[in-house]
């Protein structure tokens, strides 16, 4: 019964978060957005005290149900482990009690805490379980969903049905994809072999919660009188924390999956309030040196920020015939001294301190602006760039969703006054400066000025004495919010003539 309830809730949470990460239409945010917000590490980063208190309380009362129900990576591992269990009874009962790998467990935890304080984000974000899961879904599975959607769109379009809307699937970040793939493989292998190995030997969130689950009120307890020492519960314990020889359970590792309770044929296991039922001696495990466990080797990748500065290559057709299209070069990102982080992030520093790199914002961004940063310093954490779109004035999706407080919630109105960057014009490249060479006629382009949502760009005469003469764009520093409309729409390609640089402190 308890196991069924746990399973149902776990599937519900897992499906909800997975859908949230897969969905690119934003339709589910309203219903499922909270599921990301109750994830532990993001809540810590957001200093979301209510959620932290709730999760700590939950663990103090019920044990590590967080790991069994709320954490999508935990549920995923149960899925893998359970799948192997379906293959044979032997496989299902493949577990044995093993001692706690204290050095590994607490060593990683200590390093993790130090890394958070010292700001070594790569280490933090790679281990964070929810974020690791987010990266897997966003970078590996969302493209599959988008392709499937596009296939459906193509089919239904042929049948005259326009219910599906095609969307471009593009590789936002190779490092994220590779990290996610490695994580997926490692976690899958660990779960296939040893069930909850990741959660109990590596996961810093699991270790943190274990400090509380040690004292949990409700917990599975073995009734030594009834126990026939058949060891079935021990063999079914994917956390390998039941020691039948001493009739004890290591509650720091138990994730309250209740498999043992269901497995026991002699009614010797109960999930009960330990204060009401004077349980048998809760012997602690003796210290043993930590076993070697496969450490997850990960590599860092460098992405060449190849911003080859080239001049615009726009040319008119030589012989006039009708129809056809001029080629449009794809945009290249300019070099930005200060990275662009979304409106809602308080400062670049604050953003990168809090972000756990779960890629939820990347998965959601409808304008293809967010992608993981190319720099080592902000490994796997997102940044903005405007080659495919710009940060549209009406969109506040990432700020609504971010679970870690890296992007705080802002309204549309606030967004018009949220200064994340500053545009500047490269006059040597602007089309208004040397039009004849580029298009054959003089043009007061003004695309940037027309599309600036806050009116921060003006077209002013080049010659102050000739107000009616040729005009070029100027940026009003105090108004520019850095949304990138100008950079994205600038006709100069591949690198725009008007470019946005980040601001360290926003607002």
């Amino acid at each position, binding site marked *: 019964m308890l196991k069924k309830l746990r399973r149902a809730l776990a599937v519900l949470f897992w499906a909800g978060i997975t859908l949230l990460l897969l969905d690119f239409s934003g339709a589910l945010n309203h219903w499922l957005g909270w599921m990301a917000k109750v994830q532990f590490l993001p809540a810590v980063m957001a200093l979301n005290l209510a959620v932290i208190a709730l999760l700590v309380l939950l663990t103090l009362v019920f044990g590590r149900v967080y790991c069994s129900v709320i954490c999508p990576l935990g549920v995923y591992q149960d899925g893998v482990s359970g799948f192997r269990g379906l293959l044979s009874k032997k496989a299902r009962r493949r577990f044995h009690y093993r001692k706690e790998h204290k050095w590994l467990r607490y060593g990683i935890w200590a390093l993790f805490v130090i890394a958070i304080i010292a700001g070594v984000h790569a280490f933090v974000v790679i281990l964070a379980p929810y974020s690791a899961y987010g990266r897997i879904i966003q970078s590996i599975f969302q493209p599959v969903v988008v392709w499937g959607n596009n296939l459906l769109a193509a089919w239904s*379009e042929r049948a005259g049905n*326009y219910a599906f*809307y*095609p969307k471009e699937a593009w590789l936002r970040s190779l490092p994220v994809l590779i990290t996610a793939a490695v994580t997926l493989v490692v976690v899958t292998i660990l779960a296939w072999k040893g069930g909850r190995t990741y959660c109990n030997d590596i996961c810093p969130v699991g270790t943190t919660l274990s400090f509380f689950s040690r004292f949990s009120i409700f917990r599975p307890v073995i009734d030594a009188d009834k126990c026939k020492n058949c060891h079935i519960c021990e063999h079914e314990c994917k956390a390998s924390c039941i020691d039948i020889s001493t009739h004890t359970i290591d509650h720091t590792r138990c994730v309250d999956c209740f498999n043992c309770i269901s497995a026991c044929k002699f009614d010797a296991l109960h999930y009960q309030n330990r204060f009401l039922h004077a349980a048998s001696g809760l012997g602690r495990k003796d210290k043993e040196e930590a076993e070697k466990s496969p450490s997850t080797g990960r590599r860092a990748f460098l992405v060449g920020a190849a911003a080859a500065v080239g001049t615009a290559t*726009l*040319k*008119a*057709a030589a*012989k*006039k*015939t*009708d*129809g*056809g*299209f*001029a*080629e*449009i070069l794809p945009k290249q990102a300019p070099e930005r001294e200060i990275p662009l982080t979304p409106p809602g992030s308080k400062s670049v520093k604050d953003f990168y301190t809090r972000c756990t790199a779960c890629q939820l914002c990347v998965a959601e961004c409808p304008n293809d602006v967010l992608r993981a940063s190319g720099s080592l310093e902000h490994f796997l954490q997102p940044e903005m760039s405007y080659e495919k779109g710009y940060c*549209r*004035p*009406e969109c506040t999706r990432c700020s609504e969703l971010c679970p870690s407080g890296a992007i705080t919630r802002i309204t549309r109105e606030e967004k018009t006054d949220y200064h994340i960057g500053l545009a500047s014009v490269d006059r040597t490249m602007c*089309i208004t400066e040397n*039009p004849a060479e580029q*298009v*054959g*006629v003089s*043009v*007061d*382009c*003004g*695309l940037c000025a*027309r*599309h600036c949502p806050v009116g921060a760009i003006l077209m002013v005469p080049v010659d102050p004495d000739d107000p009616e003469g040729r005009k070029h764009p100027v940026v009003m520093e105090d108004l520019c919010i850095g949304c990138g409309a100008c950079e994205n*729409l600038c*006709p100069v390609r591949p690198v725009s003539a008007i470019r946005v640089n980040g601001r360290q402190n926003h607002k």
Partner: protein
Amino acid sequence: MERREFLKISGAAAAGAVIGACAGGGSKAPSKPAAPVGDGMVMRENPVSGDKVSLLGFGCMRWPMVKQPDGSEIIDQEAVNQMVDYAIEHGVNYFDTSPAYLQGLSEKAAGEALSRHPRESYYIATKLSNFSDQTPEASLEMYKASFKELKTDYFDYYLLHSIGRGGVAAYRKRYVDNGMVDFLLKEKEAGRIRNLGFSFHGDQAAFEELIALHDSGEMHWDFVQIEMNYIDWRHADGVRNTNAEYLYNELDKREIPIVIMEPLLGGRLASVPEGVARQMKVREPDLSIASWAFRFCGTYPRVLCILSGMTSMEPLEDNIKTFTSFKPLTEEELFFLEQMAVQIKEYPLVNCTDCKYCMPCPFGIDIPGIFKHYNTAITEGTYAQSKEQEDYAKLRRQYLMSYDRAVPRLRQADHCVGCGICLPACPQSIEIPAELRKIDQYVERLREG
């Protein structure tokens, strides 16, 4: 192979049937209704040359294109051959092309398709489309190339392409000062051009000047090609275009044969606003919306030929139907169409006929694609007007989604820099950058929600 031979035989059999009587088309599936059997294709006689011209002419400006692996486009020759064969089989004998059409590929495709038929079974019309380079050398080269592309040694109808804007001065610059008119008149004497005329886009003053050349004897126009349809009959704006009623009467007075272009305004009169379409269907439940526009032009006797730029078999079959069982409009029906024209004019449509003369835009904008999508939304009534509208959210979503589908993001109106290179190319004199800007602002409002 066998099937192909069978088609050939059945095609020949059809062609051999009584002239004009439509022989069902042996290649068609029996489940489809047979091609209409009427009085045959309406033929008009050119009083000057004695040509017997089909009232329906084939405009070779809108043939289907297919994308190549390298991204370039070529004409779907197989589809063209099929359409041309079907058209000739059903009595169409006038084919109008230009060196500029379809990225310069139209003449060659027309030559390919037509040269499979005896040369005397059809009339070729092509043009001197010297828009970008008016030197005698370039113009001459263009003229000569047309023979090669069309695989012929004479043109039945040859046009000075799109004059009127800039008046007689522009005409002199493009055709007189470079000696081309003298040259073309000599070619006419030599029999390589059978009829010499011009196609007209412009205001009344320009037309007066051009027709004055005819009256004074400086230039004899064997025929003139004008834009005529039930909108332009009395509702041309007088700047871009002159009322067709005036043009027709002036030409009729002088007994100059008239060829009609844009009878459908680039397809816009084949899909008129719903309220208008309903009234047409109430009167003629089984005739297409487009047939009204063709019958309108065909009702006027000085019209020699009505050009339709047919992209696929369906409009071709429909047009054949219209012209083989042709019913001229009555006085009352003409009055009805005038009412419809007044109603259509009330919609804020962009006057684009999708001729693509403005293309390619050097910045990659799909100008006709944007206008077409916008016009369609207006005529279909799916144009979101205000947030107070009952189904605003639905219409908004529909417009934005269909816009992205019709025109790739990078080719949409928000990328127009306003360079104006397209302006002189537009035969409708549409203020293209201004219209694009209006649509961009509309779309931006929708995007903002």
